[in-house]
């Protein structure tokens, strides 16, 4: 990084941000030079996303100053930030699936006469822009047909089209395979060498070390420090991030594998356009093991989950749970066979947030003896039962009559756990069980899942977070394009190999 006499590209001075009593950012100072790749590092809830949202104009700081290229600025909204040549690529893409690449990029700033869009000029402008920065795109392709990595590059192009010189990326590698990540890093290095300033929000330390020039670490809203990446190590960064020795794997006793509890055979499902969304899927989950299903989102996980729980019927194949063929059975029957389900989206499938916690807990128990008698509800008994299990599963709330909508994500996930684990089940389908959940609750959920596994239950864990899968699984399956392309015991699993399987580049024979 050359020393220069120009003012720093981005300066954030003494930034404080409060949400009520919660101090999300506590006097943060940030100084980034032009052309620098800065990693903003911290755990979930450290305040890095908040800080960048302030920079991008989504929030106003409670106190502090922002200077862009030496000029003091005050942003009321993202448009002000964009006017100062800032751009942000969010974790969840903001794309129009049914519109073309060009339409997505020019949206809101279309070259036009009297309002009528000049299509030729649009395509030309977009193509030239892509070429200038080394992107390979098809301007007329529909965004829905693009891969995740390609979509992300469109998001970056969008910022460049609007003249961004500072690009903020929020956890950009969360949804990428290792190979796509490498592609992204190539692009970012290219942009940096052309004078663009990159700010990377991430909690993945290996990436910080690989890509960034400097790293700023936040912990619980406070600035821990900024270091030159070449002068530091992953361990030091981890210590700064967490403040204590970090155990990167969770301890658990060796798996005691028992009988297969869930047997999936040749499961096949044809979706729209005649494509097979599930293609001859075969695997088992045994009692006493956690099987982690790794894969890039959109490769059949949703279809597999829906077929297993019973929202969708497979076209071919069999699902056998505890010896019973449940392929054509209703959801109720499957659950009665011992099936517990932690859904990916707790607000869509896990809860009714307008209702009370008690009523949310009771679903599945309504005919049991402490919930009803002769078809009529016994509310007092149910209330006591609820208090018991809410206590058992460490849910923080004032009373079971409280509305579900008042609880935090982590607490709600524990409610779901309480409900599902209190049923007489031995198979647990956990779909992204720690998504949007704070650290404390995440650890708790891992503990509970491992405890069930130690008791002999069979667990199928589906997660887009490879770290999570590698942390607690006993065996890893990889799904790609609706096929199980790998089955690897944890002690043989290497992240690079799994990444290759996830991106479909090595399709070996299916191993059981």
């Amino acid at each position: 990084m050359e020393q220069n006499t120009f003012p720093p590209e981005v300066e954030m001075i003494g930034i404080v941000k409060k949400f009520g009593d919660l101090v999300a950012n506590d006097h943060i100072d940030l100084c980034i030079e032009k052309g620098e790749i800065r990693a903003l590092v911290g755990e979930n809830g450290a305040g890095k996303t908040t800080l960048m949202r302030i920079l991008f104009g989504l929030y106003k700081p409670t106190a502090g100053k922002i200077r862009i290229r030496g000029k003091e600025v005050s942003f009321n909204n993202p448009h002000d930030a964009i006017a100062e040549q800032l751009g942000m690529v969010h974790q969840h893409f903001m794309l129009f699936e049914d519109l073309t690449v060009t339409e997505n990029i020019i949206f809101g700033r279309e070259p036009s006469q009297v309002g009528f869009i000049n299509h030729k000029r649009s395509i030309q402008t977009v193509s030239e822009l892509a070429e200038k920065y080394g992107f390979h795109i098809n301007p007329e392709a529909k965004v829905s047909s693009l891969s995740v990595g390609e979509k992300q590059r469109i998001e970056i192009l969008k910022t460049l089209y609007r003249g961004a010189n500072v690009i903020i990326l929020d956890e950009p590698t969360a949804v990428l395979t290792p190979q796509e990540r490498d592609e992204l890093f190539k692009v970012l290095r290219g942009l940096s060498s052309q004078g663009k300033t990159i700010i990377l929000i991430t909690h993945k330390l290996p990436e910080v070390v690989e890509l960034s020039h400097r790293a700023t670490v936040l912990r619980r809203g406070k600035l821990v420090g900024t270091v030159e990446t070449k002068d530091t190590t992953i361990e030091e960064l981890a210590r700064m991030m967490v403040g204590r020795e970090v155990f990167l794997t969770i301890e658990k006793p060796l798996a005691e594998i028992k009988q297969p509890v869930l047997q999936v055979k040749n499961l096949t499902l044809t979706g729209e356009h005649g494509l097979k969304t599930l293609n001859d899927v075969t695997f088992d989950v045994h009692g006493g093991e956690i099987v982690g299903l790794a894969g890039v989102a959109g490769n059949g996980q949703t279809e597999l989950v829906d077929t297993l729980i019973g929202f969708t019927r497979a076209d071919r194949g069999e699902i056998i749970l505890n010896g019973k063929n449940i392929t054509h059975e209703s959801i109720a029957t499957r659950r009665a066979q011992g099936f517990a389900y932690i859904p990916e989206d707790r607000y869509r499938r896990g809860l009714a947030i307008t209702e009370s916690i008690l009523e949310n807990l009771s679903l599945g128990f309504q005919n049991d003896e402490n919930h009803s008698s002769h078809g009529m509800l016994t509310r007092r008994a149910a209330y006591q039962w609820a208090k018991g299990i809410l206590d058992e599963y460490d849910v923080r709330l004032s009373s079971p009559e409280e509305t579900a909508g008042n609880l935090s994500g982590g607490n709600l996930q524990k409610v779901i756990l309480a409900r599902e684990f209190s049923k007489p089940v031995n198979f647990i389908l956990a779909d992204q069980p720690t998504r949007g959940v704070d650290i404390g609750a995440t650890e708790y959920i891992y503990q509970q899942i491992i405890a069930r596994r130690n008791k002999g239950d069979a667990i199928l864990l589906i997660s887009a977070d490879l770290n999570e899968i590698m942390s607690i699984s006993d065996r890893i399956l990889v799904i790609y394009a609706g096929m199980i392309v790998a089955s690897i015991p944890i002690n043989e699993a290497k992240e690079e190999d799994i990444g290759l399987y996830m991106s479909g580049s090595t399709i070996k024979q299916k191993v059981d």
Partner: protein
Amino acid sequence: MDQDKLKAPIETREHSFFHSITKKWKDAIPIVLAILGGIIIGGVMMLVAGHNPFTAYTALLVGAVGEPYNLAATLGRAIPILGCGIAAALAFKAGLINIGGEGQLVLGALGATLVALFFPPGWFSIIVALLVGVIFGGFWSFLSGFFQTKFRVPILISSLLMNYIATGFVSYMIFAHLIEPGGSRNQTPLFPEATRFAKLIPGTTVHWGIFVVLFIVVIVGFLMFRSVAGYELRMFGANREFAEAGGIKPKRMTHLVMALSGGIVGITGACQVLGVYYRLIDTSLTLPGYYWSGAMAAILSNNNPIGMALASIFFAAVQTGASGMERATEIPFELSYVVQAIMILLIAVRGFLKPVPKETL
């Protein structure tokens, strides 16, 4: 079109009986505001039309409850609105937008009419007529539910279209097969005297059928919150996917609830012809807008049975009173429908009155 959009009116608060009193009172505030708003805007409309709102509303009050006869008329009008209201509340609570009540109403009435005209006179035929009313109305409504589960045609659309089909069919049936000979109106002959609900209050429209309707309102209200089936219905309405993931069968729920809802409307229609007109008169059940008033009473009270009952009686009072108001002031009584609609508009935005959520992480 996204199936998600076609859920019933979104509920924004709890409904269980186990609440502290303060919570219940707080929940009623938006409803009171909506009612006041409707009254005020109605008054403004009267002013604009050159009338004195105070005299008008006084005349309305008198017309509704001022004299014993008016009070009875209000009660008599409330009966069909109550029946339709509980049916609507039941369906809406389950997330099913049954707006085909008009068709179910006339078909139920038709069923009862067929029995009344062709069965031997007597109280036994009344019972059969009521049952046939349930079956006709219930079946028609069930069809709507079936079209959704089998063909994915939204209940909102099919029930609405089937209104027109049903009213046309009933109109035809009267005209072509049941018409009173020698008369000038499209109506059936009078039912035999023994196949009628006797008047509870002589000289009014209040008849013994009111107990049928009230019984249904109480039973449905009770079961909705105290029974397992009611619990499942409420969860289904609160979040269908959640209910389904928990083992509730959406097809079965849809079919049952629609059939039940339509059946209740059907029996309401049967009660009307057996107790008020003693014949089936074309458009007599649709012109007064009974089902729409009932549906709006359900919406206004957030599908809570007690609230719905109060709202139904309230709307009945407003409509009856408006007739009296028209006699006194020449203001057309349709103003009552306008005021009703405004109240629903105001209650629809009750969520907007909640404090704006602060910035969240």
